[in-house]
Each structure stands twice: as C-alpha cells, then as structure tokens.
C-alpha cells in the first residue's frame, strides 16, 4: 500500500468503526420482525410500542427530571470550582481541592456508586437523613460526578481567556462580583452551555451509580433499559436509541451551524 494513503484510510476505518453500530441500530429500529437482526420489512411499529410502554415512559420522565436538576446544580458548583482553580492562585488545600474536583472523572463508577450508597446509609443511621433512597440520593450522586466534568470544561475556558480584560474592568471601577457578571460570564457562556449539556447527558446515561443509590420507585431509564437488554435484544430499545440519537444529532448539527455562522460573521467583517 502506498504510504501516502495509509493514514487517511486507517483514519476512515476508525471513523467507520465508531458509526457502524449506531447505523445498524437505526436501521433495525425500522424492522418489522421481532427477530432484531433478520430484516423483514419497513415498519414503525416499535416506535408505537415504545410510546405505549408505561414503564419506559415513566422511567424516561424520572431520568429527565434527575438530569435537569443534577446538571443545573453541577453547573453552579462546577463553575465555582473552576473559578477557584483558575483564578484563586495558590492557597492552603489547593492540591486537595484540585484532586477532589478531577478525581471523579476517572473514578470507576462501581466505586463511586458503592461509596455514595454506603455514605447515604451511614448518614441515615446517624443523622436520619436522607430517609431512604430515591430521587434525592440519585441527584446528589449525579451532581457530584457531573460537577467534575463541568469544572474541567469551564476551567479550560477560563484559563484560555485573556485575563487582562478582567483586570481592565477592575481597573475601571467594577467590583469583583460585577467583573464576574459583566466580563467573565459572557466570555465563558459557551463553556457553561456545553458543560450543562454534558452534565445532562452524563446523568441521563448513568446506569451504575444510579443502580447503587436508587431506591424503590426510582428506576431511571438506563436501569429499565438494562434490565430489558439483559434478557436479550428488544426492538423497542432500538427505537428508543434511534430517537435519542436523532435528538443528539439535531442538537449537535444546530450548534455547529450556529458556530460556523458566527465565525463567518465575525471573519467577514474584519477590516
């Protein structure tokens, strides 16, 4: 093989590898047959089935609620943590703070899940709170690990930002709080949006941690899917997956389009 083409071909195969399973999921979600992998004919009946399944609908609603609240909490806490790491310089306990902020990123989920559950059980025994496990405990757990992702995204934006604009605002008489809202916030807004979306997705997606800290009556969507999938392939899960992929793809394409338009607008008007 000619060396010139080796790298592009290898890279294309890599990209194909990433998308092959997703494409097959989408295709077979329109398959009429219950045997997921044998094509019979085009049908949307699994989508109809999906929307008639109360268990899935309820779990989806619970998951969306949890994801919304956890992502919002994680956004606030993670942004504060990022500010501390990017702007406060050296202080006593910085290493600990940094470690606690970034460690959840690489911590295996089984450990995070188990340790949080044991904490909740101990707290209930000694403090009487949280009474039992359910939505609240899942939200706390998700906030904790999503916080780390938000902090990383926001911190890298803060570090990349020209700090002298903040100093200029201070110099012109704005108090530190004012500077944050006038200068820092508009500057890191894209990172806040992507941080929130990332947290939302991660929370919506989590199976392991939720399984540990959840209680009766609080089954999230991944928990329901997992119990269905464990028994074998089920076509309505394919339909669900296709819907989720469609939503994500639409969101990403929209954001790409907005970014490109913005880049084009500012690029063409220079000079």
């Amino acid at each position, binding site marked *: 093989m000619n*060396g010139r083409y080796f*790298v592009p071909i290898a890279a294309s195969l890599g990209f194909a590898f*990433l998308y092959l399973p997703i494409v097959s999921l989408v295709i077979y979600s329109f398959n009429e047959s219950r045997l997921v*992998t044998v094509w019979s004919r085009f049908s949307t009946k699994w989508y109809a089935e999906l929307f008639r399944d109360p268990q899935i609908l309820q779990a989806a609603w619970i998951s969306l609620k949890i994801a919304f609240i956890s992502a919002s909490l994680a956004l606030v*806490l993670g942004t504060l*943590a990022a500010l501390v790491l990017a702007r406060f310089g050296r*202080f006593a306990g910085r290493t600990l703070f940094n470690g*606690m902020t970034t460690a959840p990123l690489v911590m295996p989920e089984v450990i995070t899940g188990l340790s949080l559950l*044991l904490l909740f059980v101990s707290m209930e025994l000694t403090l009487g709170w949280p009474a039992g496990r359910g939505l609240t405990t899942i939200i706390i757990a998700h906030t904790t690990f999503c916080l780390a992702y938000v902090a990383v995204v926001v911190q890298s934006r803060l570090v990349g930002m020209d700090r002298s604009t903040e100093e200029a605002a201070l110099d012109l008489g704005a108090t530190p709080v004012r500077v944050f809202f006038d200068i820092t916030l508009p500057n890191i807004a894209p990172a806040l949006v992507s941080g929130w979306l990332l947290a939302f997705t991660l929370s919506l997606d989590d199976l392991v941690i939720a399984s540990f800290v959840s209680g009766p009556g609080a089954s999230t969507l*991944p928990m329901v899917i997992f119990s269905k999938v464990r028994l074998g392939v089920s076509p309505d899960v394919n339909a669900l997956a296709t819907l989720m992929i469609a939503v994500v793809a639409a969101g990403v394409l929209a954001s790409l389009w907005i970014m490109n338009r913005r880049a084009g607008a500012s690029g063409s008007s220079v000079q």
Partner: protein
Amino acid sequence: MTQGVVARGRAWVAAVPGIWLLVFFLLPFLVVAKLSLSEAAIARPPYLPLWEWDEDYLTITLNLGNYRYLIEDALYINAFLESLRIASVSALMCLLIGYPMAWCIARARPERRNVLLTLVILPFWTSFLLRVYAWIGLLKPNGVINNMLIGAGLIDQPLTLLQTDFAVILGIVYTYLPFLVLPLYANLVKLDGALFEAAEDLGAQPWQTFLTVTLPLSVPGMLAGCLLVFIPAVGEFVIPALLGGADTLMIGKVLWTEFFNNRDWPVASAVAMVMLVVLVLPIMLLRNAQNSSEELA
C-alpha cells in the same frame, strides 16, 4: 479593609463546592474503608458496627477477614489480573486505531477539523448503554456480522463472538476510543508544523520523521489517552455484563455481584479499597502526563 471583603468573598466561593466535595466525594471513601473492616451480618444494613460503647468499655472490632478472604479465594486475584489484562489490551488497541484518527484531525484544515472532531465526540453524546447494546445485535450468533459472513459464503457455522473476552475488549475499545483520540489530538495539534518540515528538510523520510519527531513529541498525549481508557476500563461493569460471558471475570462485575447478589457489603467494600489502591498509580501517572502535555503548549 476592602481587601478583607474580597478575601471573605473568595472563601465563600471556594467553600460551597469544597464542602460539597468533602461530604459527597471524600467522606464516602472513609465510609468504604470503615466498612471494609467490619463483619457481614444478616441485618439491616447487612453489617455489624465497628465500635460498641458498653458500660465504659469502648470495643472496636477490626475485621481483616474480608481482605484475607480476597487473598485466599483465587476468584478475586484472577478477576483483578483479568481486569488489568483486558484494560491494557483495550488501551493498546485504542492507541492503534486512534492514532491515525488523531493525526488526521490535527493535520486537517481548520474548518474540516471541527467537523472531524465533532464526529469523534458525537457518539460520546449518545447513550453509552445503547452503544454497548448495539454490539449485541451485531455479534449475536444470528446477528448482523454472522449473517453477513454466512451470506457471503465465508463460513458455514456462526462464529461465537458474543460472550467472549474479544467482545468485551471490542466493546471497551469502541466506547472509550474518543477518550484516547481527544487528548492525543490536543497534543498533536499543538506541535509546530515547521518541526516536520525541518525534519524533512534535513533529509528524513516521512516514516523517519514520524518515528524521530512526531512519536517522541506525542508521548504525553498517548500516555494520557491510554490511561484515560485504562483506568475506567479496569472497573468497567456494563460492558462485561452485556458482552462478556459467564466466565469473563472483571473486578467491577465481581464487586457488583458481591453487593447486589450476595449482599456482602463488607467484602464489596474491601474489593473497592483494593481497586482504589491498584488505580492510584495510573491516576498519578495520568496527572503527570496531563501536566507535561500542558507544558508542551
């Protein structure tokens, strides 16, 4: 005096996330450590307390039995070794597949670069569980891959793909590939293009340029990427549970079983403690790799 106000404001800003993380991230590990030293019991919660206060006598019972059990029962040691093996192989496979991708993205024109990067990140935004699930449909005995191979006349009998270590590694490589591509790309894109031109100008063939310039300069990115695959893969539960067979022993799965099926919380805690200790070294390595690739910029 006004500086004092600023300092107090800063303390508050740091305290809110700081206290949250202390309570919900650090404290839980202490609870796990404590529980790994207690004794399992048929009770609610299913363990005996570590200390008892009885008429002026404080009795602390430290039970090292859980750890002894981990050493004596070959299951746990095998599961640890197997997890490390599968995670290492997966990380290396990711490197082989991901390096050309990262390189292509880093060398693409800026407007195409964003599109390619989005393509790498996009699967990451779709459900992890569903992406693993997709492979079941592909790998099953009567799944897409076997049907195609039989249809093409390459094989008569379906291959056993699902419920093997191969399937587990495939699943890990597939789901964690973006974790390798992104840091490696970030490393490669920072390299000055003139470096490669200089190497060629001095007479290096493209492959020599790659071996003598590109590869050494991308070590921090490769290391960070491989560790970002390796560390979570060691404790992976979903992938071995869905794609692996009954004999696929991974420590995350063992912990899960110990906890949910056997309801042995103390042993599950001991497993978690050992896993933490095993992962401390790679996590430190990761921090160093990330720091050194930042210095490169």
